[in-house]
Each structure stands twice: as structure tokens, then as C-alpha cells.
């Protein structure tokens, strides 16, 4: 029992994944008579970074309203949670697992589907029927039915409208590391810029042990303190 995607849905998901370096996520829309056949991938308004994706709560509610107005039941549009991973691993993270349990755990069934940048996929079906359980599903592209052509322009527009990259804090500027020979030259150049003449005119400060500085002998025994002003 694989999770299948139409070529249209597969091409769209790959396109959305590759539009930037961030993760991206959405819901799979299932076929009416086959809930494990994904016909479309719909983005939810979201904030993304290179390692996170977070749907806006209001956008999720808007998506539900929109799909219900289209006449779809929730089991067709809200059960297959899809997101991408930027690296080569599609294995779910702790956060992925927590979200899957918390947000989809009360549904009769749900699928977490992850597509990694390197092409690896991960799909797991969780179901509550009977004793409940989970099943890792193979992922297939279903070419058996006619499918729509790709539409990069519309997909890109959907991406621009839905995905907001989280602001990246500026990194502190770092000096380039010099090669050893360059570093030695750099040291010599700094030494050459040292103006010794400026320091030659400064009178030498008196040392605490100079007689000018302290006219009394440094007390070393109890007798030395006799007559000393301190």
C-alpha cells in the first residue's frame, strides 16, 4: 500500500522544494476515490527557515474554509501533511513527530510525508482503527492516469504568496585567516608602523623603589617601622 502522487503533484512538490534554500510545507489533496493518491499539493501561508517550517494558524483555518467551500471533505485535504527537508535525510525530526502526534493524532488516519532535498522520501501512515498503529509507506509516482502539465508560473506565484522566509540575524564580520607567510609580513608591517620617537620624549616614571619616590627605607622587620610615618 504505497502513498502515490500524480506526476503533477510530484512535479509541483519538487518545484516548490527547489525554489529556495528553506523548508516548505503544505497539505496533499487526495483523489476522491483514493485517499492515498495525492493529486495536488497546497501551500499554507507559512514562515520558513533553512531548518524549520511553521504554518500560520489562521492560514490553516482559511485553508479548511476554502476547501470546504470547494465541496471537499476534510479527509481529502487535511490528512496528508507534507514538508521538505533541506538536506539529504527525510527522516522526521523530534519536532516533526510532536506535530504529527499533536495536530493529527485525533484524526482517524493521517500521513506525514517528507521530501528531502536530495530526493529521499519518508511517508508514514498513522491510523486509529482497531488497536491503532503506524505504517511506513513506500512512495510512488502514479503514471496510470492522465495528468495535467506543469505550471511553474502558477506554482511560483503560490510560493511567493504563501512562503515567508524568517529573518536571518547578521553574522559578525570575521577577518580572513592569513596564510603563515602573509601573517609574518603583516606582523612586520605593524612593527614598522610603531613610532618609537613618540615614546623617547616621555620621562621615565619613578619606580616605587627609587629614593625620589619614597625617602624611607622599605620596612622589612618590626624595628624598621620605628620612626616610619606609616
Amino acid at each position, binding site marked *: 500500500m504505497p502513498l502515490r502522487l500524480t506526476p503533477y503533484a510530484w512535479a509541483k512538490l519538487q518545484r516548490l522544494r527547489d525554489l529556495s534554500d528553506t523548508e516548505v510545507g503544505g497539505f496533499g489533496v487526495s483523489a476522491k476515490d483514493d485517499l492515498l493518491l495525492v493529486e495536488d499539493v497546497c501551500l499554507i501561508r507559512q514562515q520558513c527557515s533553512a531548518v524549520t517550517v511553521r504554518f500560520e494558524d489562521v492560514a490553516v483555518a482559511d485553508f*479548511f474554509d476554502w476547501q470546504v467551500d470547494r465541496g471537499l471533505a476534510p479527509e481529502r485535504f487535511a490528512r496528508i501533511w507534507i514538508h521538505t527537508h533541506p538536506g539529504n535525510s527525510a527522516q522526521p525530526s523530534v*519536532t516533526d513527530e510532536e506535530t504529527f502526534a499533536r495536530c493529527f493524532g*485525533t484524526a482517524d488516519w493521517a500521513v506525514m510525508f517528507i521530501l528531502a532535498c536530495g530526493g529521499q522520501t519518508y511517508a508514514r501512515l498513522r491510523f486509529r482503527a482497531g488497536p491503532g498503529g503506524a505504517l511506513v509507506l513506500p512512495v510512488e509516482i502514479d503514471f496510470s492516469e492522465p495528468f495535467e502539465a506543469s505550471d511553474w508560473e502558477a506554482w511560483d506565484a503560490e510560493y511567493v504568496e504563501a512562503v515567508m522566509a524568517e529573518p536571518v540575524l547578521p553574522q559578525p564580520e570575521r577577518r580572513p585567516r592569513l596564510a603563515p607567510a602573509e601573517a609574518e609580513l603583516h606582523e612586520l608591517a605593524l612593527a614598522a608602523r610603531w613610532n618609537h620617537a613618540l615614546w623617547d620624549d616621555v620621562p621615565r616614571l619613578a619606580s616605587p623603589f627609587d629614593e625620589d619616590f619614597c625617602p624611607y627605607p622599605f620596612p622589612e622587620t618590626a624595628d624598621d617601622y620605628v620612626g616610619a610615618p606609616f
Partner: protein
Amino acid sequence: MHILYINNSGSGFADRIEVADGLTVRTLFEQKMSGKPADYLIRVNRQPASADQVLQEGDRVSITPTKIEGAH
């Protein structure tokens, strides 16, 4: 009275249901959902609703999950 009720729990639901007059959002949640209200966004007619809001004939109530997030 009848309201349109949308949620994804159980088998999922998006249909008109009959509820008692004067039913509040809190009571509807307790009757239909399990878990904590804080884990859901509850809207009436596409607007965030308070727990004590009394439902009216023809209201559209949606209960959707919040904090859907992934990380790598």
C-alpha cells in the same frame, strides 16, 4: 438550530449539524472534541471566538489544529 461545523478530528467533518439553542463555543468543543482548546483555533464565521460566545442559527464553526510546524 443548525450550524455548519468543520473539524478534522475522527473521520473529519464539514456539514450542518443541529445543536441546542443557546449553545456556547465552550460547550460545543466539550461535546465534539477531545484534547485541550489551546491546541486548536476555534473560529465562528471565520473570526476567532471566545469560549462563552453563544452560537446563532447558521453560524459557521471551524476547529482547526494550531502550531503545525516541522524542523530538520
